[in-house]
């Protein structure tokens, strides 16, 4: 079979931009965490917590997360299908449009234009841009899969397709709005329906952006890094379909104890618990794929990132369902426990897998060995320590906060005022800032290592073939 000439340039471009947006996300994250401990660091109207926080989340999820998705999917789809990307021009257009959209989002958010829907803050003109961007991406990936030369589809392709279809449906439905001016619109849904649709979107954005794509990457880059296949393709297929069937029902667990009908809350709770099974199907598949290969945890920095990543995924998918139980949710909802949970997912699971993927890609798109494995290991420990400090401090803070909020005197009055509970949070918020700063230092080390690889890395023939798209 004639070897296809793969498009590597587009992968390289998306790697560059996603890393840049990743740095923006963590930098703004550290700034907003300092604004919590030092409120005088808010500079109205533009540089306040309220304006910067959505920039942090959107740069993180859509700039960093989706940027890496674009880079890795373009790399993976060509190799798993053994054909070149369907359209180079479309991919190039997507690259420019991606950066325009992210920039427009950041500018409008800092100016205060927002729908106030979490993770969907951008106003309708940017929604339209996101739809164009996603359709462009979807066409290119789907057409590449259609013209593939491999008969059987490897599991990563299934996760990629799910992400593409899932994001499209979620985004279209939650974008339904009535524009009243160029920068203002009102949701097409009202009251509890609006809340229900919003959290159906919100939680499934986690599924289709922060779960399915990292699993696609994990299933591709783990065997490529270890050199041995995954334990079971059948388990991966069953985990995939059960995840897809179950995930879409869970959004209402964000709305426990609200006016949303009780049965919807119970349904979401039940499906959230059931979701442990497919999630752990992938975790166990990952661990069993390491059978006889655990020594690579010491020797192979890529494996270290990937296995820690899947471990955090396992912990995340146990903690999440626990939080969706009514009684537990009543205790920890609205406390600092929740951001700690989210950051275990984003910093621990998603970012670890994204870091590993980029470390795998960069030597292959530049045709050079990684500049420094020691720096990659340093990055790993900075990321891990930073993430653990971040999450553990806020889990403790969340329990303390919930305890104080619920404490009552014998006469039924509250033991603590809200301000007293806030004051207790300060030490934990400082630890969070330290954790975030360590994580950011890790990202700086990561970028330095990539930069040096591109400019000073040692050239090798086999990597050069990949860089030129011949392998």
């Amino acid at each position: 079979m004639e070897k296809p000439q793969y498009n590597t340039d587009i992968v390289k471009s998306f790697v560059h931009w996603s890393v840049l947006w990743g740095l923006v996300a963590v930098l703004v994250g550290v700034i907003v965490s300092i604004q919590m401990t030092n409120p005088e660091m808010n500079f109205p109207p533009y540089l306040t917590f309220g304006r910067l926080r959505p920039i942090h989340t959107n740069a993180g999820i859509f700039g960093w997360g989706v940027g890496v998705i674009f880079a890795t999917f373009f790399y993976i789809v060509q190799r798993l299908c053994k054909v070149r990307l369907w359209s180079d021009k479309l991919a190039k257009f997507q690259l420019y449009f991606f950066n325009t959209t992210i920039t427009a989002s950041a500018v409008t958010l800092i100016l205060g234009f927002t729908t106030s829907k979490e993770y969907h803050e951008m106003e309708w003109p940017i929604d339209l841009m996101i739809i164009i961007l996603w359709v462009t991406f979807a066409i290119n990936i789907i057409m590449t899969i259609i013209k593939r030369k491999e008969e059987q589809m490897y599991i990563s392709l299934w996760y990629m397709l799910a992400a593409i279809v899932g994001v499209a449906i979620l985004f279209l439905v939650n974008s339904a709005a009535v524009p009243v001016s160029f920068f203002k619109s009102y949701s097409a849904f009202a009251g509890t329906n609006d809340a229900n649709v919003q959290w159906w979107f919100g939680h499934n954005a986690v599924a289709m952006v922060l779960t399915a794509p990292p699993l696609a990457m994990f299933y591709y880059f783990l065997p490529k890094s270890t050199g041995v296949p995954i334990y079971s393709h059948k388990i991966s297929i069953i985990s995939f379909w059960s995840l897809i069937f179950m995930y879409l029902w869970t959004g209402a667990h964000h709305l426990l104890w609200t006016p949303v009908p009780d049965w919807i809350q119970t349904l979401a709770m039940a499906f959230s618990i059931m979701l442990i099974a497919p999630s752990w199907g992938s975790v166990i598949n990952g661990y069993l794929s390491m059978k006889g290969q655990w020594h690579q945890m010491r020797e192979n920095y890529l494996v270290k990132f990937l296995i820690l990543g899947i471990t955090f995924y396992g912990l995340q998918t146990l903690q999440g369902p626990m939080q969706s139980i009514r009684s537990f949710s009543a205790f920890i909802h609205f406390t600092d426990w929740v951001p700690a949970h989210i950051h275990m997912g984003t910093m621990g699971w998603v970012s670890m897998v994204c870091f590993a993927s980029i470390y795998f890609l960069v030597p292959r798109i530049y045709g050079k060995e990684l500049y420094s494995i020691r720096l990659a290991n340093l990055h790993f420990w900075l990321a891990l320590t930073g993430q653990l400090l971040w999450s553990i401090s806020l889990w403790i803070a969340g329990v303390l906060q919930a305890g104080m909020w619920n404490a009552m005197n014998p006469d039924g009055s509250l033991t603590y005022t809200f301000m007293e509970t806030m004051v207790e949070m300060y030490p934990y918020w400082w630890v969070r800032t330290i954790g975030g700063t360590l994580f950011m230092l890790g990202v700086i080390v990561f970028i330095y290592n990539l930069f040096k690889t591109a400019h000073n890395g040692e050239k090798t023939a086999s990597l050069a073939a990949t860089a030129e798209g011949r392998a």
Partner: protein
Amino acid sequence: MDLGSILYLGVTFGLFVIFAAIVIRTYSRKNRDKNETAKYRMLDDD
């Protein structure tokens, strides 16, 4: 039970049937080995 509830249950049941069919197909004697070939093929040199 109103029409909406019946429809809701019907869709749920339909999804369950589809899922069961996928499991049966994946683990059927005919496809059991074939389903594992992809994990070896992906390791081939690109």
